[in-house]
């Protein structure tokens, strides 16, 4: 098991943004995490990546308790991520962004880094300052950066937001081509993308886990329909 969450919770004052969530991910698994706005999806990714402290529960990564491990250490252990709002280094070139993200800035990985850029369709932007890339290109760059870190687990937060249809298609094919041993946890509102990609789907609502199942099960699930219709669980 690559990731195991037990009783994970995060409170903000008296609001439980995430409440007693359990989740298990196998190596190489493709999992989607969906739910209405404010369900706690980003919060869950932040807890797994270490950007937030949980107020309850345990996080195990690769059979190792990382609940109190620093985000940098978790990244080195193999947790890579992208952000809901692309986080890149605007003053560095696209290539340097990838090299720094790979923690190999001394250039040994230069060819590899170019491959990562090529994979997301940014091959000819290698020397462009990341700050002058368009919104969509930044998303693609951040994905290349996350991949370059050599993750065992990849956390993606709404990678399709703000992309035009052809770009969503490109993203879909890129996700499909990810190495088979990388587990992926994908947060997305773009359900076509989700259903085309995921092995299994987990649904959150108001901080609670309401459903986990295959794509087909999820499409049929009454809980999921209720959650999206705004009914309290």
């Amino acid at each position, binding site marked *: 098991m690559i990731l195991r969450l037990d009783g994970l919770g995060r409170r*903000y004052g008296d609001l439980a943004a995430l409440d007693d969530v359990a989740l298990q991910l196998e190596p190489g698994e493709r999992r989607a995490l969906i*739910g*209405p*706005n*404010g*369900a706690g*999806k*980003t*919060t869950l990714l932040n807890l797994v990546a270490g950007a937030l402290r949980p107020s309850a529960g345990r996080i195990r990564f690769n059979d190792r308790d990382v609940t109190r491990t620093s985000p940098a250490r978790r990244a080195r252990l193999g947790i890579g991520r992208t952000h*809901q*709002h692309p986080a890149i280094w605007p003053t560095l070139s696209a290539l340097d962004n990838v090299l720094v993200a790979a923690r190999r800035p001394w250039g040994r990985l230069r060819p590899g880094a170019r491959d990562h850029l090529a994979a997301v*369709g*940014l091959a*000819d932007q290698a020397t462009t300052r990341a700050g002058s890339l*368009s*919104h*969509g*290109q930044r998303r693609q760059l951040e994905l290349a950066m996350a991949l370059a870190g050599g993750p065992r687990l990849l956390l993606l937060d*709404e990678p399709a*937001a*703000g*992309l*035009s*249809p*052809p*770009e969503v298609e*490109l993203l879909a094919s890129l996700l499909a081509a990810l190495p088979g041993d990388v587990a992926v946890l994908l947060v997305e*509102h773009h*359900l076509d993308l989700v259903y085309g990609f995921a092995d299994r789907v987990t649904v959150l609502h108001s901080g609670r886990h309401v459903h986990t199942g295959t794509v087909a099960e999820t499409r049929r699930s009454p809980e999921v329909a209720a959650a*999206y*219709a*705004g009914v309290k669980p």
Partner: protein
Amino acid sequence: MTLLVEGLRAGYGGGTVLHGVDLSVPEGTALAVLGRNGAGKTTLVHAVCGLLRPKAGSVRLDGEDLAGRPAHRVARAGVALVPQGRRVFASLTVAEHLRLTRRKGEWTVPRVLELLPRLGERRRHRGDQLSGGEAQMLAIARALLTQPRLLLLDEPCEGLAVDLADRVRAVVAELARGGLTVLLVEQQPEHALAVADRVALLADGVVAATHTAAELRADPTLTDPVLRVASHA
């Protein structure tokens, strides 16, 4: 209120992004602008509302040329903006946003909260304590409460869960039928069609073509010359 844009040129520093855009949005209609990432959609919207000073051309509202006026004067003429990237006030609570924005008119706070009930549950959260989708809702609420006669929406549904996005688009379409003038930026043609009477295709800094919604529904490939070419070379 009728919006008439003629020969609009705008850009950043020495560079020009828009090379003479012509548009007209008669009162009570909705025009959607489609274009690939970086085509200049946001630039167009900003030039219309005064956040970016046009280099040439005119922006007429009911005949009065507002080009070059500072944004707050344009806003007072009845123009509201839902900006790309939400841009809610990080240090103000939801309640403060609503209090600060509201003006007398048909959009009251209760009515807005009825449309976006989630905001009511988050009244005491600050702008930087909202989930991505919640912040997007707040941006929409903020614009509506200023009682606009011309509403500019720059990818208003980015990050919203599917149902909610559909609902918001339905409301906007309804508003347009009720006499509001709407200029909408969207990524996906089908989303644009849910709201707009006409669709303008932006490419290379000019409006390449304008189609009615009916034409586009009949022949979806009409957008291809503008959107498909975009795939990354």
